[in-house]
């Protein structure tokens, strides 16, 4: 449909009526430029996070403590790569090529989840990442299954089906360590001490400091606000920690009531927002390392893509 000034208002009205009626928006449908831009930013950031997220865990494949642990970790990391591909596939329906998305990442114009700028120092960190980082991601992704953009929603449904194994394998690692020696228990507690706050930061700034939230909620790209999702994660995770004898590193934690389902709700301290913004702005422990590694892997893989292309062209000539 040709777009003119007169019919833009009409198209916007139809678009918003669909959003109100919970009808998903599909790639060929008209959408406001800001809606498209928000999706381009959010879905590509999500895709990059899956792919960059393979790095902290990838370091531990060769050092996994058993063959069982190694096979599980390999399968989990392969899933993360797959999730990145589902999301790039959804993001490409918005009219931006995969190469362009990757170029924006390499130029620093696109971001990924800051949590992956923290290092995985020992095996307990692999437990903490699966349990807390994947746990926080699942909380967000369950909500995003209802996002208004069809391809994004379908990718989220697929991802959520696969993610719960990720969280369980992480929690199992922590549980095992808590049944082990005192040193192992200390390692597990040290890992939650270091990963708790970065996991909470994954939900992003307070709603009041999140300028993009209002449009995203109005257009149902996001179905719940950052703070609401963070509360859900905290309420779910504290009992899991207590069950296996771990302590959340926040002395202000206090039960303040029960929700409609009878589950405890907790009061907690505020996040260190200076640290949050510092990591977002590139000054976390591993920002440079993560991006450089991605660029190097992409460049070193160029010969594979060239070979595949040459093979295709030669086989056409036959």
């Amino acid at each position: 449909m040709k777009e003119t000034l007169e019919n833009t208002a009409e198209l916007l009205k139809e678009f918003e009526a669909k959003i109100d009626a919970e009808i998903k928006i599909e790639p060929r449908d008209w959408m406001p430029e800001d809606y498209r831009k928000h999706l381009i930013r959010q879905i590509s950031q999500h895709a990059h996070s899956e792919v960059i997220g393979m790095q902290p865990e990838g370091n531990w494949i060769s050092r996994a403590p058993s063959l069982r642990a190694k096979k599980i970790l390999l399968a989990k990391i392969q899933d993360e790569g797959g999730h990145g591909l589902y999301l790039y596939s959804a993001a490409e329906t918005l009219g931006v090529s995969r190469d362009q998305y990757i170029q924006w990442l390499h130029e620093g114009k696109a971001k990924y989840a800051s949590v992956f700028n923290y290092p995985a120092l020992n095996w307990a960190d692999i437990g903490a990442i699966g349990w807390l980082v994947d746990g926080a991601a699942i909380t967000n992704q369950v909500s995003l299954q209802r996002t208004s953009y069809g391809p994004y929603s379908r990718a989220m449904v697929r991802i959520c089906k696969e993610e719960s194994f990720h969280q369980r394998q992480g929690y199992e690692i922590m549980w095992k360590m808590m049944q082990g020696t005192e040193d192992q228990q200390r390692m597990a507690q040290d890992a939650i001490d270091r990963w708790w706050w970065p996991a909470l930061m994954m939900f992003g700034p307070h709603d009041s400091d999140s300028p993009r939230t209002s449009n995203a909620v109005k257009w149902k790209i996001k179905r719940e606000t950052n703070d609401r999702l963070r509360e859900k994660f905290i309420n779910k995770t504290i009992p899991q920690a207590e069950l296996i004898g771990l302590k959340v590193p926040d002395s202000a934690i206090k039960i303040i009531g029960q929700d409609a389902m009878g589950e405890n709700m907790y009061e907690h301290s505020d996040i260190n927002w200076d640290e949050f913004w510092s990591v977002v702005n590139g000054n976390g422990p591993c920002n440079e390392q993560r991006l450089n590694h991605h660029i190097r892997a992409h460049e070193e893989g160029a010969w594979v893509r060239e070979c595949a292309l040459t093979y295709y062209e030669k086989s056409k000539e036959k």
Partner: protein
Amino acid sequence: MGTENQGPVWEVFIQTKPGQPYKHAGSVHAYDKELAIENARDVYTRRNEGTSLWVVPSDQIVAVSASETSSFFEPADDKIYRHPTFYNLPDGVKQM
């Protein structure tokens, strides 16, 4: 980088069980059909999601949606006699 785009885009369709219709799953990039079908397997069927796969070059798909041309699906709008509920049946008909 910038021009090759990891090969053209292919749409992936999965049949979950024999007898079921093929359903769109997403897309992959690949330079040729062999790589396309292997990439589709690795990306979309890591947990036995299907027993059969189709991959189709995206640019070979012809598509239309009601939002683009509202009149396109109009011929179906005024033919309610195509639905079984349109018809009156005498009392006593048990199953039809």
